[in-house]
C-alpha cells in the first residue's frame, strides 16, 4: 500500500495558523456559554493541619454571590480509585485536612468575576496549623526505593583506575505554560460538558466520571486548543472537579481559571532532585562502573516517580551499574511530568559527570562519549532499533565549530566576558500507545479525520493532515483533521512525545483502509478504467486513482463514488501501541552544543548560540520540528540559568509564585538557535517510522550549558539553576 510522499516531509505552515494569529482560536476560558457565572478558589494559607472553621457570611452578603462551597457543605463524592501516581488523589472539599500550602479550601461562585474575586477575599478560614515538612534536604525518604543493578558495582568501583564521586542538585521547576489552567463546566441533567485545558481527553472523561459517579458516556470534554502545557495538563486536577461541582450546585455553567499564583500549587511541577553519582573508568576513559543514588520530592498523599534512571543505565556502555531512587514525601502538592520528565533531570547529572571525567582524563568530551558508545542496550539486552547518536555528535561538532573549543578552562576572553563551549547528549524513550482515528472520504473528494487527541503546540492537526493527505492521495487543502473532543475516537494522551507515533499510526491505518476500499471498488467496477487492475499497481495522487506506471489510466475519487452511488467511504484507523514484548530498545537521541559568555566580575551567564542535532527518525514537518527544538533550547536555558521555585520552609509557601520572581527566559535572553535533524526512519518503532521529538530536544540542554560554563570559567556548578552568585 505504498503511496507517493508529497506532503510528509514538507515544511508547510500550520493548518490552523490563521485561527491562532487572529485571536479566533478558542482556549478553554475563552468560552462563554449562556448564563455562565464565575468561580474563584480560596486556598489554604497554612502548609499542614486542619480547618477548624470557615466563615462565609461576608462573602455571601455580597450582591451577586451565588454560593460558597467548602468541606462543610460540599456534596459527598463517591470513593475514587487512584491511578498514577499511586496514592490517594486530592479530592474536592471532602475533608478538613490541609496537605499543602495553597490547597483549595473553598470556592466562591458569583455572577461576575469581580464579585467572585472580592468575595473570595472575604472568606475567613481558621486552622489548627502544624509546621509543614517541605525541605527535601532534611526530610527522610519513605516507601520502597526503586532499584536496578547489573554486575559487581562496588568491586568495579574499588578497582577502577579513575573514580569520580559527585552530587548534583536540580531545583523544582514549574511549567508556567502561558495559558493558566481554565475550565468551563455545564450540566444538563446528569450529563456534564467541560471545556477543559487537557493533554488527555480520554483521561479527563475517566477522572470526572469517576469523581461524580456517572457513566463516562455522560461526560463530554471539549479541548480543541491548549495554550501550552508541557505536562501540566496531562492529569485532570482537582480544580476541574471543583468547577464541575460548582456548576452542579448553582445549576448554571461555571467558568474557573486558576490565577498565575495558584498554578504553583495546582498543576504540578518538575520535582527537585539530589543525585549522587560515582563513576569508575580506566585510564583510557572506558567506563567500568556507575552507582546512582537519587532522591526526589513527592507529596504526602501520592508517590510520584519518573524515569530519571534510564540515561544512567543505557546511554553509555558500563558493565557494572547500581541505582537506587528514593522518594521523599513532603507537605507539598504532587509533582508531575514536565517536558523531558526524568530524563532531563537525570541527564544533568550524567552529562555533567561525563564532562568532568573527560576533563580529568584530558580527553575531548565527544571522544569520551564515543569510547563508551554501547553496541546494544545493556539494561535490557536488546539491540537498538535505531541509534544515530554518533551522527549527532559528528554533525553537531561540524556545524557548531567544536574544533575551536579550547579544552583548558578560562582560556578564551572577549573583554570582560569569559567564553566557553560545552556539549551534552540527550535521550528519551520512544513511547507509543493505543489510538484510534476515524477517516471519512466524501463524494466531493474531501476527507475528514477525527481523533480525541490534543495540540499543546507541536502542530498535531498539521502533521496529521500531512500524513493523511499522502495516504489518501489528496492535496492537503482537501483534508481536515479535527481533535480535542471526547466524542471522537479515543487517542493516546498527548504527552511523552507519543502523539505522532500513536495517533499518526492510526491515521495512517485509517487512510490506508479507505484508500484500499476505493481501489477495491474501482477494480471491481466494470465502468472504471481501473477495472481488473492488480490493486498493488494502483496509487492515488491529487485525488485521482491511477495505474502506477500508466497515469493516464485512472479516475478521480469523485467519479468513482458518484458512479457507484456512494456518498462517502469511511474507516476507523487503529494502532495497538507498543508491543508487550519488544524486540528492540527504542529511544530518540540528541546532541546539544552551547557557547556561553560569563561576566568575569558579575557572574552573569549569557548563552551566545546553540546548535542541537537530533535523531528523532522520520520528520513529518521540518518547520514544526524546528520550532519544537528551538523552543526546547529556550526551555533548557531557563532550566539551566533561571528557573527555581523557592519555598519558605516555615509555612510551605512558595515565595516566587509569579512571573516577576520566577524567572523564565524572555526575548532578550535568547540568541540565534539552530536545530538539525538527522535523516532517517524507524519502522521498527511504528508503522510511520517516527520516534517522537518533543522531549528529547530538551534533554541535554541544561548540562550542555553547565559544561560550557565550566569551560568558560573553570567553575563546576553542580546545582541548577546556575545563578550569578554560584559563579562569584
Amino acid at each position, binding site marked *: 500500500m505504498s503511496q507517493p510522499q508529497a506532503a510528509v516531509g514538507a515544511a508547510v505552515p500550520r493548518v490552523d495558523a490563521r485561527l491562532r494569529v487572529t485571536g479566533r482560536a478558542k482556549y478553554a476560558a475563552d468560552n462563554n456559554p449562556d448564563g455562565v457565572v464565575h468561580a474563584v478558589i480560596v486556598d489554604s494559607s497554612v502548609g499542614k493541619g486542619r480547618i477548624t472553621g470557615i466563615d462565609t457570611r461576608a462573602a455571601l452578603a455580597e450582591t451577586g454571590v451565588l454560593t460558597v462551597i467548602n468541606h462543610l457543605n460540599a456534596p459527598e463524592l463517591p470513593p475514587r480509585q487512584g491511578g498514577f501516581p499511586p496514592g490517594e488523589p486530592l479530592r474536592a472539599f471532602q475533608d478538613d485536612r490541609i496537605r499543602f500550602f495553597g490547597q483549595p479550601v473553598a470556592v466562591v461562585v458569583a455572577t461576575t468575576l469581580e464579585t467572585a474575586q472580592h468575595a473570595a477575599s472575604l472568606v475567613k478560614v481558621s486552622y489548627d496549623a502544624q509546621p509543614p515538612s517541605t525541605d527535601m534536604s532534611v526530610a527522610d525518604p519513605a516507601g520502597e526505593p526503586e532499584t536496578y543493578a547489573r554486575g559487581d558495582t562496588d568491586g568495579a568501583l574499588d578497582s577502577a583506575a579513575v573514580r569520580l564521586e559527585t552530587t548534583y542538585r536540580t531545583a523544582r521547576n514549574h511549567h508556567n505554560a502561558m495559558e493558566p489552567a481554565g475550565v468551563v463546566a455545564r450540566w444538563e441533567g446528569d450529563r456534564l460538558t467541560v471545556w477543559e485545558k487537557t493533554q488527555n481527553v480520554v483521561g479527563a472523561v475517566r477522572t470526572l466520571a469517576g469523581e461524580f459517579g456517572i457513566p463516562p458516556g455522560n461526560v463530554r470534554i471539549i479541548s480543541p486548543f491548549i495554550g501550552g502545557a508541557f505536562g501540566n495538563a496531562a492529569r485532570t486536577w482537582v480544580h476541574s472537579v471543583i468547577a464541575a461541582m460548582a456548576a452542579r450546585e448553582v445549576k448554571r455553567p461555571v467558568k474557573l481559571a486558576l490565577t498565575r499564583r495558584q498554578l504553583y500549587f495546582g498543576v504540578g511541577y518538575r520535582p527537585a532532585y539530589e543525585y549522587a553519582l560515582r563513576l569508575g573508568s580506566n585510564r583510557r576513559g572506558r567506563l567500568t562502573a556507575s552507582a546512582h543514588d537519587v532522591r526526589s520530592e513527592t507529596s504526602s498523599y501520592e508517590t510520584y516517580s519518573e524515569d530519571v534512571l534510564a540515561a544512567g543505565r543505557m546511554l553509555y556502555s558500563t558493565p557494572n551499574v547500581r541505582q537506587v531512587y528514593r522518594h521523599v514525601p513532603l507537605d507539598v502538592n504532587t509533582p508531575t511530568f514536565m517536558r523531558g520528565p526524568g530524563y532531563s533531570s537525570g541527564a544533568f547529572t550524567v552529562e555533567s559527570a561525563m564532562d568532568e571525567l573527560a576533563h580529568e582524563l584530558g580527553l575531548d568530551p565527544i571522544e569520551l562519549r564515543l569510547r563508551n558508545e554501547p553496541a546494544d542496550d545493556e539494561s535490557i539486552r536488546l539491540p537498538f532499533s535505531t541509534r544515530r547518536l554518533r551522527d549527532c555528535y559528528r554533525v553537531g561538532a561540524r556545524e557548531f565549530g567544536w574544533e575551536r573549543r579550547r579544552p583548558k578552562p578560562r582560556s578564551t576572553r572577549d573583554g570582560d566576558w569569559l567564553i566557553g563551549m560545552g556539549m551534552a547528549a540527550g535521550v528519551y524513550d520512544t513511547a507509543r500507545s493505543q489510538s484510534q482515528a476515524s477517516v471519512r472520504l466524501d463524494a466531493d473528494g474531501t476527507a475528514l479525520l477525527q481523533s480525541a487527541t490534543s495540540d499543546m503546540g507541536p502542530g498535531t492537526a498539521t502533521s496529521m493532515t500531512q500524513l493523511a493527505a499522502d495516504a489518501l492521495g489528496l492535496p492537503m487543502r482537501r483534508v481536515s483533521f479535527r481533535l480535542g473532543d471526547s466524542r471522537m475516537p479515543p487517542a493516546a494522551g498527548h504527552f511523552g512525545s507519543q502523539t505522532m507515533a500513536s495517533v499518526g499510526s492510526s491515521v495512517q491505518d485509517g487512510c490506508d483502509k479507505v484508500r484500499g476500499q476505493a481501489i477495491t471498488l474501482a477494480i471491481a467496477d466494470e465502468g472504471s478504467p481501473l477495472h481488473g487492475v492488480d490493486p498493488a499497481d494502483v496509487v492515488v495522487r491529487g485525488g485521482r486513482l491511477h495505474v502506477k506506471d500508466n497515469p493516464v489510466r485512472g479516475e478521480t475519487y469523485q467519479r468513482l463514488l458518484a458512479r457507484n452511488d456512494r456518498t462517502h467511504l469511511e474507516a476507523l484507523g487503529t494502532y495497538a501501541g507498543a508491543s508487550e514484548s519488544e524486540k528492540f530498545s527504542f529511544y530518540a537521541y540528541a546532541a546539544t552544543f552551547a557557547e556561553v559568555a560569563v561576566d568575569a566580575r558579575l557572574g552573569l551567564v549569557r548563552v551566545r548560540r546553540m546548535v542541537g542535532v537530533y535523531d528523532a527518525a522520520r520528520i513529518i514537518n521540518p518547520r514544526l520540528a524546528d520550532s519544537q527544538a528551538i523552543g526546547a533550547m529556550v526551555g533548557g536555558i531557563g532550566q539551566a540559568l533561571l528557573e527555581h521555585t523557592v519555598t519558605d520552609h516555615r509555612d510551605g509557601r512558595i515565595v516566587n509564585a509569579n512571573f516577576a520572581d520566577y524567572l523564565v527566559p524572555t526575548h532578550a535572553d535568547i540568541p540565534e*538557535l539552530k536545530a538539525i535533524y538527522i535523516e532517517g526512519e524507524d519502522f521498527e518503532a511504528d508503522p510511520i517510522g517516527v520516534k517522537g521529538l518533543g522531549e528529547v530536544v530538551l534533554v541535554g540542554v541544561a548540562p550542555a550549558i553547565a559544561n560550557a560554563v565550566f569551560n568558560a570559567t573553570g567553575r563546576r556548578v553542580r546545582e541548577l539553576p546556575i545563578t550569578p552568585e554560584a559563579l562569584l
Partner: protein
Amino acid sequence: MSTERPDSAVPPTAESCSAPSRRTFIATTTALGGVVVAGGMVAAPPPLGAEKAVAAGAPPGGSVSLTVNGVRHTVTIDNRTSLLDLLREHLDLTGSKKGCNAGACGACTVLVDGRRVNSCLTLAVRLEGAEVTTIEGLEKGDRLHPLQQAFIDQDAFQCGFCTPGQIVSGVGCIQEGHTGSPEEIREWMSGNLCRCGCYVKIVRAVEQTAERK
C-alpha cells in the same frame, strides 16, 4: 476625556509616545450600540441553600464610552473591571489573553490610543474616549495584517496563547521604530513572554515586517 498614560509593557521613550490625537468618535458610534450591563447591575438568581444576609449593595460602577476596533461601545461596568476582562467577559473579544493578570507576561497586550498597554492592569472605567485596538482589529477585511502573515511565514508561535499579545506588541514596536536590529527588537519585545520558546522566530517576523514597511 481620558488622558492618563496607560501602563506600558515597555518603557516608552519620548519619541515613542505617539500623541493620541486622532480619535474618531463619529465613524462608528451606532455600529453596535452595545450597552453592556455587568457587575452588580445584573439581577442575580437567589443563592442556593444559603442563609442570605442583607445585600451589601451593588458594587460601585460607572459608565464609559470607548472605541474598540473601530466600534463605539458605551458600557456600564463595575469599577473593578479591567480592560482585559471588559474585552473578554463582556465584549466577547477573547483574543486578548489573561496569562498572569499582573502585567508581567504581556499576553493581554492591546493598543490604547496607539500605545502598547497591558490591558490586565488598565481599569476599563478610566478609558473614556479611548481607542482600543486588539488582535481582532488588525485584519483588514479578509487580509491579515503583515505582521500576522509574518508570524505564519516564520512559524513564530506554537501553542498560540501568547501570540495575540506578541503580535499587537510587535505592531506597537514597529510603530515606535524600535526595530533597528534584532537586539533592539528583543529588548523592546521583552515584555511579552512566550513559554513555547518562539522568540527567535518572533524577532524574525517583526524584523521582516518592519523592513517591508
